Structure formats: structure tokens, C-alpha cells
């Protein structure tokens, strides 16, 4: 794991921003940290970057405790945040010149092609750039160092669709060569780039999984019986939102496999007339899992 947090706690005065957060990011993945506003996404990333210190629990980045990160690690990490401060009085070119010597891995050719692709005016002061341009400039400062880990905090909020596409396209070109940890409050924004997803709410992780596993393991199931449905006394693991209507039982199976489902249906019911299995849209998977884990049902 290139990034891992265990039981992370962080409070601001009386407000507990992180309440036992545990996430694990595999090397080479693109991990999307999704959650509503105030869920603790920015705090998490700031703890990981050693901008904030956690009160309890641990966070490791590139195998090092976040509180002990040094230049050796930071030279392999790119960080782009929505509310990052860039030197307003420098031009993009001047700032890049300033950054270059800090990074042994800096790729000058890549820097040039990124500037061109993102259509960044190199001689305008950063303070005079629009929000979209500033975010593109921040990305242009992070990618040429060919980071092993790229941390992006809400990079798309406030960007128009066109700028977002440019940003995303550029990001994807290097996506295979690094690990990306990206936060967003909107699943639709990052689903192209993400290979893994962690959903957090109120400072806790509700679930994390790979995107492919996630869509593969959740199904909507309707079992039609000959007679009236008597719901099983012990609900099988992973069956959520059970509902009975006459001789039909419907539920969401969150640990679906064909074999497992037909086995559990056969052991729990007699006189099965039909079993209807349907995939569930990504968005519904999210709301289902988020709701049930929050209510402590799952």
C-alpha cells in the first residue's frame, strides 16, 4: 500500500473532522475519495501531506509516517489542491523555473508539452490567472516531476466542462505511471479516471473497493415464489433492503455471485418460480451502500 491510514482522528476545536478513518491505496491505482461536503476529504489529504498532524491513529505515505515525511518523499509526490496557495507575483514560467531544481526526476520536455497542451500562458502572473487557469497551472507544476504519488484535492470544483476535459485528458496520459489519490464530492466527475473508490462520511470510511469489483458484486434480485414469501429469519450476508410484496421478495445483494445467490435462494425458499437478477447503476450502488453502512445495517 502506497498510502494507508489506520483509525485516524483529527479535530478542529470541538469539531471532529476525522473519526477513525482507515483507507488503503494500492500502488498504481487511481483512488477516488468520495464524500459530501464536510466529510473530511480535505483534512485527510492534508494529514497525508503532513500539513496537519493527526491526534490519534496513523497515516503512512510511501511507507513513511506522515509526520516524518521529508524532502526524500516529497520529491516523489505531486500535490494539487483547490485552495492551494501559489506565488501570485510570479509568472507560470518563473514558478516552474523555481521548482525545477528541487526535483531530480523533473522532465523538461514533458513540462513544455504540458504547457502547450493545457494552453497555459507562461508569462502571465499567477495572481492574474482565472480559477481554471490556476488549477491547470498547479497541475502543470506537479506532472513534470513524474511523481510516484499524485494527490489531487477537489481539482474539478469550479472548473467549466472544457477546462475539466483538458485537465482530465492530461492526467490520464500519465495515469499509468503513478498512483493517483483524488478527492471529489461528485462521483460522476472522477469515474473515468478512478480504478478504486472510497466513500467517506463524517470522518469515517463507509466502504472502499475497486470500481470493477463494486459493479460486479452488487445486483438487484427479485425472487418470485409459488406461495406467499416468508422472509428468512437469518438474512444472508450482504442482502440489503429486503422487501416483501405477496409472493415476491426483492433485495439488493451486495456480495453477488451467481453460484452463491442460487445456493442461498435454494436453502431459504421453497417453490421458486423465478429469480430475476439485474445489475445496478453505479450511482444507486453508492447510495445503497452509503445509506446502509451509515445506518449500521450492513
Amino acid at each position, binding site marked *: 500500500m502506497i498510502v494507508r491510514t489506520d483509525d485516524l482522528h483529527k479535530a478542529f476545536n470541538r469539531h471532529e473532522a476525522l473519526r477513525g478513518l482507515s483507507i488503503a491505496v494500492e500502488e498504481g491505482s*487511481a483512488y477516488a475519495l468520495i464524500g459530501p461536503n464536510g466529510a473530511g476529504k480535505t483534512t485527510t489529504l492534508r494529514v497525508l501531506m503532513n500539513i496537519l498532524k493527526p491526534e490519534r491513529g496513523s497515516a503512512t505515505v510511501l511507507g513513511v509516517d506522515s509526520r516524518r515525511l521529508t524532502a526524500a518523499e516529497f520529491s516523489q509526490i505531486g500535490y494539487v489542491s483547490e485552495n492551494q496557495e501559489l506565488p501570485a507575483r510570479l509568472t507560470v514560467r518563473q514558478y516552474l523555473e523555481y521548482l525545477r531544481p528541487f526535483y531530480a526526476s523533473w522532465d523538461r520536455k514533458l513540462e513544455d508539452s504540458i504547457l502547450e497542451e493545457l494552453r497555459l500562458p507562461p508569462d502571465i502572473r499567477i495572481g492574474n490567472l482565472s480559477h481554471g487557469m490556476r488549477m491547470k497551472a498547479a497541475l502543470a507544476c506537479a506532472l513534470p516531476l513524474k511523481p510516484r504519488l499524485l494527490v489531487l484535492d477537489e481539482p474539478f470544483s469550479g472548473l467549466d466542462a472544457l477546462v475539466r476535459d483538458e485537465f482530465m485528458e492530461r492526467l*490520464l496520459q500519465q495515469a*499509468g505511471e503513478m498512483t493517483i489519490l483524488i478527492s471529489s464530492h461528485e462521483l460522476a466527475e472522477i469515474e*473515468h479516471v478512478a480504478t478504486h473508490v472510497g466513500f467517506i462520511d463524517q470522518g469515517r470510511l463507509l466502504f472502499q473497493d475497486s470500481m*470493477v469489483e463494486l*459493479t460486479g458484486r452488487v445486483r438487484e434480485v427479485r425472487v418470485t415464489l409459488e406461495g406467499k414469501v416468508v422472509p428468512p429469519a437469518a438474512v444472508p450476508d450482504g442482502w440489503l433492503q429486503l422487501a416483501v410484496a405477496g409472493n415476491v421478495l426483492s433485495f439488493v445483494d451486495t456480495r453477488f455471485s451467481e453460484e452463491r445467490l442460487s445456493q442461498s435462494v435454494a436453502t431459504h425458499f421453497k417453490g421458486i418460480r423465478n429469480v430475476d437478477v439485474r445489475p445496478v447503476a*453505479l450511482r444507486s450502488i453508492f447510495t445503497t451502500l452509503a445509506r446502509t453502512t451509515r445506518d449500521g445495517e450492513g
Partner: protein
Amino acid sequence: MTHVPFGLVLRSGQSIFDQVVFAAQKAFLSGEYRPGQAFPSVRALAAGLKIHPNTAHKVVQHLIHERWLEVHPGVGTVVAAAPKARAGDRQRLLQQEVEQLVVEAKRVGLRLPEIIQAISNEWSKIDRAREVKEP
């Protein structure tokens, strides 16, 4: 300009993986990719569709597992002859998917002949595409 491997506009809300797998299967059935033809590399697929290379890799692995693609050492990944359907696939299509279509059709107020016409059009569209590519 990157080349888009096959016609696909990714929609939000549905899994990217599922959408790409579906588009690939459609491309195989319509003869856009014929058996023996080289399938795009993971890198080309990712760049063309603007998706993460890991996701593209998973798609290719899945298509190999489902026997749509074959790995020829030294050559790369090539399209296989259409794999046999698994037991239950046909039945599922005839029952669930058709039921879903019928319910949805009735909901939006379509009539049976219109649905049959639409299915028949789509069917021959794929057949025609195939004929054009395999004279």
C-alpha cells in the same frame, strides 16, 4: 489526435468497465473486429477512450477470460471466433431482458409492431455492418 478504437460515448452513472465491454462485444458481432484481427493494446484503448489504463487492462483481461480475445505470444491480443454462450445466457435474455424492454415500451406508450420493427432494424444493422466488412 488519438484513434478511438470503437464507437463509444461513455455515459455517466453506469460502470465504465461494463460500457467498454459491451461496446467491444458489439464491435465483434458487427464485424468491426473480425476473428484473427489484432485488438488494440491496453495503452491504445486507454488513450482512445480516455479511461484509466488499469480499467482498460481489466477490460482486456475480461474479454480474454470470456474468450472473445486470444493472446498470441509475440503477436499480441487478437480477436477470437465468437465464443459459445454460457448456459442460462439465452434464457436470461429471453425472459428478463425482454420483460424489461416490454415493460419499458408499455410505459412510454409504444405498440408491439413498433418494438418489433425497432428490434428487426437493429438486428439487420448489425448483420449489414458485418456483410460490408466480410464481402
